[in-house]
């Protein structure tokens, strides 16, 4: 069986779904960040697959993936910094404790 575009798309959608489910259901802030990484990487897989298997403008998608790496790294580093300050204050990173501000 040849591996084609469809296989990559199915993989990407599955990864994205798993990531979104995890981000919405997990309580540990670091695990949520990991799930967000899964979602971003699902999009990256999709971009590379489209670049490879469609004829036009091959490098646009791959260039976008490079930029996505940078954006994801910046986002996670700021996120980890904020989570560390949260940990220093509360001594845990359970997002059920994020309950000071509501309604």
């Amino acid at each position, binding site marked *: 069986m040849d591996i084609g575009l469809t296989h990559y798309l199915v993989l*990407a959608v599955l990864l*994205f779904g798993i*990531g*979104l489910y995890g*981000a*919405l259901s997990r309580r540990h*802030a670091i695990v*949520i*960040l990991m799930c*967000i990484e899964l*979602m*971003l990487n*699902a*999009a*990256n897989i*999709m*971009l590379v*697959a*489209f670049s490879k298997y*469609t004829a*036009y*403008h091959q490098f*646009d*998608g791959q*260039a*976008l993936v490079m*930029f*996505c790496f940078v*954006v994801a790294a*910046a*986002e996670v580093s*700021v*996120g980890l*910094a*904020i*989570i560390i*300050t*949260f940990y220093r*204050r509360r001594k845990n990173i359970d*997002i059920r404790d*994020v309950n*000071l*501000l*509501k*309604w």
Partner: protein
Amino acid sequence: MNLDMLRPEICLAVTAVAVIAVDLFCRIKWLVNITSVAGLLASICMALLLIGNSEQSIGNGLFILDNYAIYFKLLFLGIALLVILASTDYVKRLPKLHGEFHALLLTATLGAMLTAAAHDIIAMLLSIELTAISLYALVAMLKNTKSNESAVKYILLGAVNSAVLLFGLALIFGFSGSTSFTTIAAAVSTIQVGNIADHAGLLFGLVLTLAGFAFKIAAVPFHMWAPDVYEGAPTPITLFLSTVSKIAGLSILMRFMLTAFIQTDSLINNLGIILAIVSALTMTAGNLIAITQHNIKRLLAYSSIAQSGYMLIVVAVAAIGLHSAASISNLLYYLVAFAIAEVAVFSVIIIASRNADMDDISDYAGLAKRSPLLACAMTLGLLSLMGLPPLAGFMGKFFVFSQAAQNGLLWLVLIAVVNSVISAYYYLKIVRTIWMDAPASADAVKTSLAPKLALLISCTGILLLGILPALLNKAAEWGSFLALWN
């Protein structure tokens, strides 16, 4: 490449770096403020010099220079200048973060300016993220429990949102074959009502992308982050979030929609109906929840959500009335009126909380007896947000509502008018507290020159635009020219 057309942005980026250097090597802290204000003024001059250039793409189609982009650049630079002026006293509460505060504010403004000019998926994603990541750090800057908590909420939800946005953009890229808005438009134009099933991937991508924009402007199903983040963030950043960040989201939503959907009448009309429903839900939810609030920043957050609803009326009209230039110029007018009113109200809150948070509405009891000028400014801002004639907010609402009524959205206008009446209740509640209640202390609220200047500019703007709307109308009509097919 003609990168020289990006002079305002380059100037702002250099200023941001210079601010960090000044903060690092120089002990005189007010030099940081001077540097950032000078950089913003230089950038404004360069943006003004761009007026009159023909429409052209910058950097091989990554960005575009048109009247619409220049108008938004000037708007963002102006608001950023007022925010920095208003917060000269407030930043003393962030002793070691003086330089970072200004530098990140400048990069966030830079991101917003690039967002308004983006004409390509890559450029759009990077500019949106530049604003968002700068703001994540700024929200956390106060280092107390509330600020920390709102930063955690903002970054986790914001990161999920950017992943959803990226996934949508990846689908659009895959099924249209290009990252350029123009080529995407050509691909979208092949969708008809009859063959929607063949284009499910592209449509799914568009839906995810629109959801990403809706998060940025805090439209209803995606608005829950806004009150929490606005309440915990440092007050100047709350002002920045509710003006620059939201307007940047709106500018790209408008450009993306009008560019990508321009050739598909049936699709854009259906989209217009959906946007009208979202708009009605947004203003109703914002106004109804605002009534019950006691914290002034939280109340203004819900009021700002409701204002997003009014702005979405224009976007819906633009979609249904097929991108008429008049509806875009209404949006541009409304945005300026909204921004200066927000600046006036928030500047007073920023001035009042120079030493400690003054977030409860009761903290402002009898402000009129303590500092009559501040009370007048805040009242002007609140009444303009409410839409009372002869203030700027009234003219903004008048243009928006009459345009919507002419384009067959009378039901939406009725809902909006009822909502304006509801909003009068909570705006006037604050006004009553300021003027009628007894003050807790008789001391005047201390202010220095720069915040007064910000207040003066915004209050003059509110009065001037209300009495002489033609002043800005010309500019808004000029700014409503989008380069649609470059």
